[in-house]
């Protein structure tokens, strides 16, 4: 037996590699040439008012070259017949690194998030210059919060919600309508002074936005109680569109597609961020800068996001959170164990929607303007993509995914260096969504359960088998 295996193994090691690999790459290159030829090789241009053709042989050559050499490289390395199949079934290097660094990741990320404005100011050399970075930070944190909110519905309770943006819209319009309402303004002006409502509207409306969105979550929840999976997804998708269309068409109430402008800005708990004598800068003895408000908004959204995470972690340890997870696993078993699936589902919808409402209220106060255009299906899809890419149910994964998605999208705006490769007439921003799509497909191939699938690898780890009961309670079993 041993002799035989040695004999069969020996020729395998000297399998001809280069020849077949080259042939395969050549075929791929020819297919690419055929495909790309008409698509990239020709360009329609207008010459003296008539349509003419321009030829782009160099760009075509580059594209075909990428396919040919890429395929050749893959054939020689990863797809090589001589490559020993991986016999390693235990935790991979990354898993082990993750386990070791695991406890440190959360505090490190939190510290980074808290210190981020300072880091941005120092790295950019001034408060005003750091505006772009801090705005980006606010955008990312908004999506982190939305991701965490949707995670309650999709990741924990397993209810696929494609209309999450509806609750974001409800929150935003709650603030926009209440803050700009003349009767309310007059009412408070008579009691506490003319600027009272403008200064305090955000802090009054924030909880109301959450409550209204939560109520809308329940209103959506009732008709879909009996639905699951694909059917639920379609109904929630429709719900998101209904909210948007109502916002567009109910012109008397929402001002339709024109939106609501000049919404009162956020204040430092009643102290406005302006250059006046009662403003934030004057009261704290600082030179006035419009950036004070931006930095403050950053910390507001950070606090809201952390509140979302904190509440989720707490709820997960309570019976209701456990019931959400059990509901995701098996609804019939849940019912026969005495869990009221109706209230469990509604509470998941309402809780998730509430955080969407908070985020919406924040969105309105940051932008100072809301219109139905901000609440399209794209936003729902983006939030859902963040939850799925992050690894359903994983808090840290969702945060990382939001940073990668939103940060990555921004990064792709700055692809100027690609011009040096493809020539000056290459407009990289046109390829932004293409590259983004490739990246998402790559992540799903490489990590099908999301970037952080903590609930998975732990069960294979010998050292984690002796895990204590407290850890299991947190849902890391």
């Amino acid at each position: 037996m041993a002799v035989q295996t040695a004999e069969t193994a020996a020729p395998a090691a000297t399998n001809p590699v280069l020849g077949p690999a080259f042939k395969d790459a050549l075929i791929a290159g020819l297919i690419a040439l055929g495909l790309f030829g008409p698509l990239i090789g020709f360009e329609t241009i207008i010459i003296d008012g008539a349509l003419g053709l321009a030829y782009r042989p160099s760009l075509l050559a580059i594209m075909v070259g990428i396919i040919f050499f890429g395929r050749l490289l893959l054939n020689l390395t990863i797809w090589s017949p001589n490559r020993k199949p991986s016999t390693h079934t235990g935790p991979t290097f990354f898993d082990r690194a993750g386990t070791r660094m695991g406890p440190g990741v959360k505090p490190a990320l939190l510290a980074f998030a808290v210190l981020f404005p300072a880091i941005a100011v120092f790295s950019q050399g001034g408060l005003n210059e750091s505006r772009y970075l801090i705005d980006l930070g606010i955008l990312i944190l908004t999506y982190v919060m939305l991701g965490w909110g949707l995670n309650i519905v999709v990741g924990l309770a397993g209810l696929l919600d494609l209309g999450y943006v509806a609750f974001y819209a409800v929150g935003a319009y709650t603030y926009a309508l209440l803050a700009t309402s003349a009767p309310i303004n007059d009412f408070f002006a008579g009691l506490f002074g003319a600027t009272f409502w403008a200064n305090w509207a955000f802090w009054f409306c924030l909880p109301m936005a959450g409550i209204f969105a939560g109520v809308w979550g329940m209103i959506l929840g009732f008709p879909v109680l009996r639905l699951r999976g694909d059917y639920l997804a379609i109904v929630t998708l429709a719900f998101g569109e209904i909210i948007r269309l109502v916002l567009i068409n109910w012109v008397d109430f929402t001002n339709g597609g024109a939106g609501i402008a000049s919404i009162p800005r956020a204040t430092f708990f009643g102290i406005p961020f302006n250059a006046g004598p009662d403003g934030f800068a004057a009261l704290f003895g600082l030179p006035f800068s419009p950036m004070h408000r931006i930095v403050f908004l950053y910390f507001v959204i950070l606090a809201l996001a952390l509140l979302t995470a904190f509440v989720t972690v707490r709820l997960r340890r309570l019976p209701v959170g456990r019931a959400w997870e059990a509901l995701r696993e098996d609804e019939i078993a849940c019912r026969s164990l005495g869990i009221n699936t109706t209230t469990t589902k509604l509470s998941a919808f309402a809780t998730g929607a509430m955080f969407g409402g908070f985020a919406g209220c924040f969105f309105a106060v940051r932008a100072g303007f809301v219109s139905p255009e901000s609440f399209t299906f794209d936003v729902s899809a983006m939030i859902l993509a963040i939850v799925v890419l992050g690894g359903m149910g994983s808090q840290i994964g969702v945060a990382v995914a939001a940073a990668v998605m939103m940060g990555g999208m921004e990064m792709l705006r700055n692809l100027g260096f690609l011009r040096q490769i493809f020539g000056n007439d290459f407009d990289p921003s046109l390829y932004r969504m293409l590259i983004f799509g490739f990246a998402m497909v790559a992540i799903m191939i490489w990590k099908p359960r999301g970037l952080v699938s903590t609930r998975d690898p732990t069960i294979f780890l010998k050292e984690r088998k002796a895990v204590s009961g407290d850890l299991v309670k947190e849902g890391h079993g």
Partner: protein
Amino acid sequence: MSDTLTATAPVATARTDAPMLQVRGVKTFYGNIMALRGVDVNVYKGEIVTLIGSNGAGKSTLMMTIFGQPRPREGTITFEGRDITNVPTHEIAHLKIAQSPEGRRIFPRMSVFENLQMGAAVDGFAHFDADLEKVFVLFPRLKERINQRGGTLSGGEQQMLAIGRALMSRPRLLMLDEPSLGLAPLVVRQIFDAIRELNRTEGLTVFLVEQNAFHALKLAHRGYVLVNGAITLSGEGRELLERPEVRAAYLEGGAH
């Protein structure tokens, strides 16, 4: 029903108290198809009662009908004197009827510990630790697997988990739907031993739905035979085991 053996079943005749679970003339439909054609079943306190029958006889339908999914179109179901025919499923569970459903239906992505916690949801967590210990004494394998996900357990372990989860609610009536399905004979014996043990030491009332007629009738005090949605035979477990009809239909592969 002329074949009924109740007259010769001492357990049934000796009882003058009201049955714990009483199913009276239950008819259940799937659309227009009548799955149960007026079923009468009594389960008395402290008994192990088994319901045997072949595939498609309506065994699981009866089990699910008692639990309110689907609802019977005719007939009544009472538990400890209370009519539960139209009580919502999760409230039936609160009356301390526990079910280990067909196909086990454990929560695959939750750990063994979390699964057992879910079972205790009805009872509250006052006796949680003591009940957990009892389940571990009954099924020591579960203790070894405490932090493992339910879905990674073997079939037998999953069945143990399903029964353990049902026991965590401190049930007065335990309903088991085909606990032997797809399990190795040795594991089946372990599970049936555990059921017998529970009944003997704690007086737990058990209603067992089984296709494995031999084991079920040996274990049970009384049995019912369900054919095409109707009870055709009933009597003491060992007595039923001797009946030629039962032997022919369920124990000797249907061959005469």
